[in-house]
């Protein structure tokens, strides 16, 4: 193609490529690419699809373990959950589209992650999410919050997969760039997992699902750029979801998967037909030849460029066994879905696209994949924030109850009921622990076992000490699973950061990865899937580092499930783990003193492991009534949560006031029947576990001895009113 230098430069830039990246395309092809080819390179080499800034570091994460069936690199990770069953899961970001158009952005985020899971042959059984919004006083926050929640519900409710849990934070660093991370867990049989590697020269390549339209063109490129004040103009790049069609696609795919017909299958997610076809060819080390005229189209006169870059939703690409086309077509016809043979597998190792008898592109797959740029970006690591010493006079008797009420009524700690009541969390009739406990628990259908799932991250911890913050995000999910009575198995990660070309941001990424690596190693809790979202910046302001983690654990016997709700009157309340009074970078400072200051609490991973194992031992021996991890907000907030959930009061007796709101790590609260006290204390002594009696359950009121009291009903009212009032 003869382009003038200026045209060439602006075309390259408008495709999100750098000039030196363009030069390496020319070198690889031995010629200049045509427009369609340039579009394909742009789609494959953007940050979102190529992981060019993050790949080097991601390789450092531990990814193997006894129960890992499939680690990162496929559509989702797979873990063994006994009896020939596997859990298939992944978390993915849909940040940029959700900021531009919250309903559709969030909805298609759910749709995309669901496809990643059922592509592998699993029936999705649970959706979760991790959401970050700007400060509640920011004028856009209410609109974005309501839109995102409605979008997540709109998609999940319609397709009929329960949304069982998640987390949400508000912080000004997300004012111009919210985060919407969606996670799906599915269940499959270990010997019926489907992969994406194309194989069998001459085999048919089949397109199924919805027709292709012009929506979402360049979505992945948009998702790899920073925002500015004109971001609204990018609305046309946001895809529109159709959960009804996805439901049909889910049922049709699972029906076809029962037959021996599918050799390879890949969903068309970011960068649509481009990334799915290239992924399949690359994994199978083969070529693909596609006749684009055969692609079912929603709009007329679509060009090769548009067809390859469209991000129309609810589509899949498959390689079928030859001769199975008619049988497969009948299944998709039954579900009123498109089914077209659009090409075949070749031995050329090239991606060849034809349209109306003319060759529109011919690119060696290895140039697209192996020659994709990979950067070891410069990074600098900030010194962690310094220790903060609290003037203890602030914690005076008169204010403690008021402080507690403020904290449990604050957007970052209050009840999320307003959110999860908009999600169908009960469909499929296997949700055993509903949203609002430490982890959601979903029964494996037709069995007596369950999986526990939790998503977590503390961005302020990560900002002020990225290494400890990375550790914490992993550990917090681990603790939530433990507190639910589950054996933690593995995680998925969704790494949300600012512009990696800034050494300080890259430093946050590197340190978070280092912290996660250490936590995963010590806890034998590997990463099996994940996603990276960079350039989360608006007008040059980056978000706080946010490595959102989704943890999955196994509960072998559903009778052993634990929830945080107090169960009985007159039982004893103990803390497990050391109460030391770390007050730096806590919710107390942030909410009560309006100060984001001090050092992120550090985690002793061997202590963490020891305490977690101890809780599981108590669970296995049926020695505790309820358990809850002590997380952000500290001890009193955690006690209040147990009281509100169980609608049972507590009388608490603690002398050192700094322990009320400190955020020391590796701690749990347990509710114990008096009969079991001696045994538990002895076990703690034998295992060298820090254990402390802090009170007992009572009727109706939360009483802090010598300080004051408040009724549990009143607490609940305060905790549950923030969201409804804010969104009114």
């Amino acid at each position: 193609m003869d382009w003038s230098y200026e045209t060439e430069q602006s075309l390259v830039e408008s495709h999100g490529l750098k000039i030196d990246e363009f030069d390496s395309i020319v070198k690889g092809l031995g010629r200049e690419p045509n427009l369609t080819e340039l579009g394909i390179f742009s789609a494959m080499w953007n940050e979102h699809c190529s992981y060019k800034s993050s790949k080097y570091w991601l390789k450092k994460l531990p990814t193997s373990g006894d129960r890992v069936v499939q680690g990162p690199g496929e559509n989702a990770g797979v873990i063994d959950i006994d009896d020939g069953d596997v859990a298939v899961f992944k978390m993915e970001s849909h940040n940029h589209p959700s900021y531009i158009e919250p309903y559709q952005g969030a909805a298609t985020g759910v749709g995309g992650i669901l496809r990643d899971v059922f592509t592998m042959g699993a029936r999705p059984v649970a959706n979760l999410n991790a959401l970050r919004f700007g400060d509640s006083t920011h004028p856009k926050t209410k609109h974005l919050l309501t839109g995102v929640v409605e979008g997540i519900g709109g998609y999940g409710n319609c397709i009929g997969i329960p949304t069982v849990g998640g987390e949400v934070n508000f912080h000004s660093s997300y004012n111009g760039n919210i985060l919407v991370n969606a996670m799906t867990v599915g269940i499959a049989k270990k010997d019926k997992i489907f992969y994406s590697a194309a194989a069998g020269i001459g085999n048919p390549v089949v397109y199924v699902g919805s027709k292709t339209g012009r929506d979402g063109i360049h979505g992945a490129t948009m998702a790899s750029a920073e925002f500015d004040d004109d971001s609204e103009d990018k609305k046309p790049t946001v895809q529109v979801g159709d959960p009804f069609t996805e439901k049909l696609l889910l049922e049709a795919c699972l029906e076809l998967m029962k037959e021996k017909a599918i050799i390879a299958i890949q969903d068309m997610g970011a960068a649509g037909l481009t990334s799915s076809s290239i992924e399949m060819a690359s994994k199978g080390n083969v070529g693909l030849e596609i006749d684009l005229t055969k692609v079912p189209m929603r709009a007329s006169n679509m060009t090769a460029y548009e067809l390859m870059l469209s991000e129309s939703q609810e589509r899949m690409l498959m390689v079928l066994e030859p001769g199975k086309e008619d049988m497969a077509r009948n299944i998709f016809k039954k579900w009123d879905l498109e089914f077209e043979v659009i090409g075949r597998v070749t031995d050329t190792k090239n991606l060849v696209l034809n349209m109306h008898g003319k060759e529109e592109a011919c690119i060696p797959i290895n140039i697209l994949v192996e020659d994709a740029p990979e950067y070891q970006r410069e990074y600098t690591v900030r010194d962690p924030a310094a220790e903060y010493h609290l003037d203890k006079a602030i914690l005076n008797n008169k204010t403690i109850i008021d402080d507690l009420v403020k904290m449990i009524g604050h957007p970052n700690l209050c009840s999320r009921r307003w959110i999860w009541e908009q999600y169908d969390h009960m469909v499929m009739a296997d949700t055993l622990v509903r949203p609002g406990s430490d982890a959601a628990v979903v029964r494996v259908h037709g069995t007596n076992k369950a999986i526990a799932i939790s998503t977590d991250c503390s961005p302020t911890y990560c900002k002020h000490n990225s290494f400890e913050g990375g550790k914490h995000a992993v550990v917090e999910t681990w603790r939530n699973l433990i507190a639910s009575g589950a054996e933690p198995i593995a995680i998925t990660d969704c790494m949300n950061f600012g512009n990696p070309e800034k050494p300080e941001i890259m430093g946050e990424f590197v340190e978070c990865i280092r912290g996660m690596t250490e936590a995963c190693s010590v806890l034998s809790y590997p990463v099996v899937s994940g996603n990276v979202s960079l350039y989360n910046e608006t007008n040059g302001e980056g978000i706080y580092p946010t490595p959102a983690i989704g943890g999955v654990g196994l509960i072998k016997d559903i009778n052993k499930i634990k929830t945080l709700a107090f169960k009985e009157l007159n039982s004893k309340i103990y803390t497990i783990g050391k109460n030391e009074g770390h007050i730096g970078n806590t919710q107390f400072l942030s909410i009560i003193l309006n100060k984001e200051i001090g050092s992120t609490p550090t985690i002793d991973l061997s202590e963490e492991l020891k305490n977690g194992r101890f809780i599981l031992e108590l669970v296995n021996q049926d020695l505790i009534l309820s358990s809850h991890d002590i997380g952000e907000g500290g001890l009193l907030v955690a006690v209040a949560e147990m009281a509100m959930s169980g609608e049972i009061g507590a009388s608490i007796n603690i002398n050192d006031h700094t322990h009320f709101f400190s955020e020391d790590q590796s701690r749990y609260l347990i509710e114990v029947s008096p009969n079991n006290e001696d045994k538990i204390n002895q076990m703690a002594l034998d295992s060298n576990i820090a254990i402390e009696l802090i009170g007992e359950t009572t009727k109706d009121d939360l009483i802090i001895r010598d300080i004051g009291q408040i009724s549990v009903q009143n607490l609940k009212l305060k905790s549950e009113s923030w969201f409804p009032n804010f969104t009114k």
Partner: protein
Amino acid sequence: MKTHVIVFPGSNCDRDVAVAIENISGSKPDMVWHKNTSIQESDLIVVPGGFSYGDYLRCGAIASTSPVINEVIKKAKAGVPVIGICNGFQILIETSLLDGALIRNKTLSFICKDVYIKPENSSSIFTEYNNVAKMPIAHNEGNYFASDDTLEKIKDNDQIAFKYCNADGLVNEESNPNGSLDNIAGILNDRKNVLGLMPHPERAAEITLGSDQGKNIFEGVLR
């Protein structure tokens, strides 16, 4: 015992209700694809919840024109017990087997939570257990509405099956989750063999799920 569950494109509680029926009756229901035009002899037909046809156009409207519906109507008129749950209730209203309309929740949002309902009618096979039952709702359009005449008619004719109430059985404004007229959670047809209700008894059919009081509604038929 022969039972049937209708499956539309977009149904998503078909499996849940089939599991509940099997647990209660000991035998698996037949799943009937919406394109079928006949249903074998049946002791119970369930039109399950979900988003048939994506709830596009109007909830239940497209499904009510599916081929199988004529057969459902025929069986209903012949006295076969029929239950429509959630989207199934919406579909039965669209077929005119049941009276009234289901409009957008008063809150203008989807609501999924436990509610309590209590039988208002003790003469139907679905409502013979005269106690308060806890079960979840999960819907966007469950706000029951009827014209004054229709409401009077269904009242006079004892067609109100269930009302939303609190845990103690008190029917009041606070226990009405979606703005339904007179707290109506479910209604019957003239002959009392067709029931439509918004709550999901199939999700409250074993204690592990938080309640097994939903079983009551099926037991009269399945015993």
